[in-house]
């Protein structure tokens, strides 16, 4: 069966510090991968998605970047965090031939 992992689960970082959040998927090949941000427990904002290694599409111009160095690894990064980067970050995957997405447990980021 397929499993998606995210780490860390929680993170407190000062303004101006770098960020690296990692997401890995097990039990599938060539998944579509997604990064979302959820603010204040409400709607999801799509940040990045990837259909293959090295292929990244950005949805919202901002302080963040994403990379996909391996087929089942998706990384969200920032060089300098802003207060507005605080939120709940969710990684998701979808099989290329399927329809629904499956979400990881999320990372709670607080920028102080």
């Amino acid at each position, binding site marked *: 069966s397929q499993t998606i992992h*995210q780490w860390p689960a929680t993170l407190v970082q000062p303004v101006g510090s770098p960020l690296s959040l990692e997401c890995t998927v097990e039990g599938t090949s060539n998944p579509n991968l997604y990064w979302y941000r959820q603010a204040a427990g409400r*709607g999801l904002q799509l940040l990045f998605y990837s259909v293959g290694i090295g292929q990244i599409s950005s949805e919202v111009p901002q302080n963040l970047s994403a990379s996909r160095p391996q087929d089942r690894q998706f990384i969200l990064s920032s060089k300098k965090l802003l207060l507005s980067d605080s939120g709940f970050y969710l990684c998701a995957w979808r099989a290329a031939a399927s*329809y*629904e997405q499956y979400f990881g447990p999320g990372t*709670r980021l607080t920028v102080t």
Partner: protein
Amino acid sequence: AQSVAQPEDQVNVAEGNPLTVKCTYSVSGNPYLFWYVQYPNRGLQFLLKYITGDNLVKGSYGFEAEFNKSQTSFHLKKPSALVSDSALYFCAVRDIRGAGAGKSTFGDGTTLTVKP
């Protein structure tokens, strides 16, 4: 462009009563429609989807949803609510063609509270 609206921020029902969580959508082509549930501090869990065929789709935990093309709606329903159904529910839509293909748009979520 594709969009989805969940008109109710909060739905309250008594345990054992039927529940409905509303969703309307807008796409330029034909939609794929989804419902997800989120428990506090957790990721979203897939509940059910409409792709094609029968307008009434059944999903996990006794939930079902009815696709209504004329009203562009996809309301989530359950005949008898449980306290454990209390959570945040998201409707999502994906256009099967065009620029939105492959990417889903999520509603803002509806908090369902089931009281004993």
